[in-house]
């Protein structure tokens, strides 16, 4: 460790703390509701980071909604179908076959949220490996289409009433006890549906406390991607993106790094799903739409798909667009027709931003130069 402190070492630290301060500032900012902020940070920032990772190796993937869906179902299946709650004592029990874990908190225990994050990420990674195995053979638009297909197939699977021998829980609406099952994933109504009054179990008191979960996860994820970008793995990613054949001639294994990018992508989106499923109280196949895939990719491209900061800013902007327009519509003195339009045109504006950024700002809202200045690359000065 060198004790020599140069501007190049101080600036990244300062920039890092600055960004975290901005994020915390955003979290406590009045004017936006807690649930909107949570949405912007999970479905916006984390999911766009997820869409960004395959782009780092030059792969166009629209599979993030699938990972997001898996993360949310991990929440639903663990917290609603697996964990038992005792309403008298307020205990939460996790049956584990021969034994069980009991938590005595009134709120849904954070340890179980952690379990959901881990399980969700694990399953998402398995799914990512499956798509990754296809990705090895495919490139460009072919891969994009297969990833779209994978989301559609996953959506259809979770809709099923029965998969093989698995039928899922009995339908509580079936009062005559005719043996109607909801399907292994809760069917079309999703989870918890009718299975639990008041939706998903809540690990926090009020919506905005979800920020205590999201902000640290986002900061860690961003730091992870930042370090990744600047390291050996990141250079391999970038080399594959620039020229796969030349990269492999330099000893880089393209397949390994493409799958790695997919796996990390899966983890981020599943985290977002796990948290957001709690925050919005319910989860179903409708959470993973093509529109969402578009928004995630748009977040990465609009923000800038060459540095970690772009997808975070872009993802939050795209996800918060509707709220922003609503805030504008709320200003005094606007004619009511214009107000009406402002409230209804957010997809139009999102589309327009996508087109304009592509046409005029191909590097996105966050210029790579800015990130380069905030976090100077090491080795720029001759030793």
């Amino acid at each position: 460790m060198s004790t020599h402190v140069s501007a190049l070492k101080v600036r990244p630290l300062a920039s890092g703390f600055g960004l975290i301060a901005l994020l915390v500032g955003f979290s406590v900012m009045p004017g936006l509701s807690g649930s909107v902020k949570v949405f912007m940070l999970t479905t916006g920032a984390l999911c766009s980071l997820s869409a960004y990772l395959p782009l780092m190796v030059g792969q166009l993937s629209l599979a993030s909604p699938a990972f997001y869906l898996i993360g949310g179902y991990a929440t639903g299946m663990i917290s609603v179908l697996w964990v038992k709650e005792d309403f008298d004592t307020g205990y939460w029990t996790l049956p584990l076959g021969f034994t069980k874990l009991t938590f005595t908190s009134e709120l849904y225990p954070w340890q179980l949220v952690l379990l959901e994050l881990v399980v969700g990420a694990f399953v998402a990674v398995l799914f990512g490996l499956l798509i990754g195995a296809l990705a090895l053979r495919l490139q460009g638009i072919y891969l994009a289409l297969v990833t779209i297909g994978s989301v559609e197939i996953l959506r259809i699977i979770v809709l099923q009433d029965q998969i093989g021998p698995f039928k899922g829980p009995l339908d509580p609406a079936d009062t005559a006890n005719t043996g109607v099952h909801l399907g292994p994933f809760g069917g079309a109504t999703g989870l918890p549906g009718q299975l639990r009054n008041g939706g998903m179990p809540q690990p926090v008191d009020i919506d905005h406390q979800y920020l205590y979960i999201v902000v640290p996860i986002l900061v860690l994820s961003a730091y992870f991607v930042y370090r990744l970008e600047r390291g050996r793995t990141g250079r391999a990613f970038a080399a594959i993106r620039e020229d796969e054949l030349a990269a492999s001639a330099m000893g880089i294994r393209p397949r390994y790094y493409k799958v790695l990018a997919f796996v990390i992508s899966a983890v981020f989106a599943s985290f977002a799903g796990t948290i957001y499923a709690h925050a919005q109280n319910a989860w179903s196949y409708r959470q993973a739409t093509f529109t969402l895939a578009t928004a995630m990719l748009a977040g990465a491209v609009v923000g800038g798909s060459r540095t970690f900061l772009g997808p975070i800013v872009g993802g939050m902007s795209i996800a918060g667009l509707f709220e922003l327009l609503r805030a504008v519509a709320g200003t005094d003195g606007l004619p009511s027709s214009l107000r009406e339009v402002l409230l209804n045109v957010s997809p139009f504006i999102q589309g327009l931003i996508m087109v304009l950024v592509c046409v005029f700002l191909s590097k996105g809202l966050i210029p790579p130069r800015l990130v380069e200045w905030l976090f100077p690359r090491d080795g720029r000065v001759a030793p």
Partner: protein
Amino acid sequence: MSLIQNLVDGLAVGSVYALFALGYTLIFSILRIVNFAHGAIFTVGAYLAYGLMGKQFGGGDFPFSDKRLPIGMNFWIAMILGALLAGLLNVLIEYFAFRPLRNRGADTLLSLVSSLGVSLMVSNLIQNLVGSDPLSSPEPLPNTRASFDLGEVNIQTARLLTFGVAVVVMSLLWYLLNRTRTGKALKAVSEDSTTSSLLGISTNRLILFTFILCGFLGAIAGTMVSTISGTSGPYMGSQYALIGLAVIVVGGLGDIAGTVIAGFLIGILQSLVAGVRFRIGFWDWNFVGSQWKDAIPFLTLVVVLMLRPQGLLGRAQIQKV
């Protein structure tokens, strides 16, 4: 339902898939991009045909709510005129969303995102102009939704008409591509993009022509689908946009004959699966095909890509070093 019945139903759906996907294929074969706005054009076609027939739009607080255009065209004229207008819209899309990127030699990722943006804009625009209430579609002939029996097979008139229209349009397209100068040029460019400069073909004019043609195909498909289903909504194109993508990849991106075959293949497979019901006793599992119907295009896509990454008829591409 009998096997033949399913086949016949599948032919109608498949013909629309083929017609619609040809719009993707032609643009891809010329520009090597996927125009995601094609699904929105599909919707625009259905709405234009509806409007041009002078039918009243749905209720609500939108500019066109409860209004009708002061013209009342015959279904067929409205469909064709609407399709031409959709073609012009496609030209605007090319001009604003694709051409600047192409001139700059931008990454294909950008043109893809750009077309996704256009798709959002167009569907949202429809919603804000006429509302999102489903419209009950006009009938080209009286009692279109009625059906008749042919032997054991029940045929819905709308499906028969759709199949007929698709076949006529595809035949015209075949004629265009193989017998006319512009069409031959288009085909030449689509088969090898380097030949365009050699043949002295004005590529930009050819691209504009292709966009008009693709808009036309997509809009006809939209109008016919709304005729079969009986309704149209601002997002009716989104599902077709995705199925169409599966079709073109199965057909071997950019391959015209492959697209048509893949369209029919997927349409028929969907229809066949919908009729399947069996029980796996060991698992006590009722397999209900209709639940898996929507997955068919994508399952076909995945299977075909596993076995033949270049598509059904596609040739393997050799990478130049």
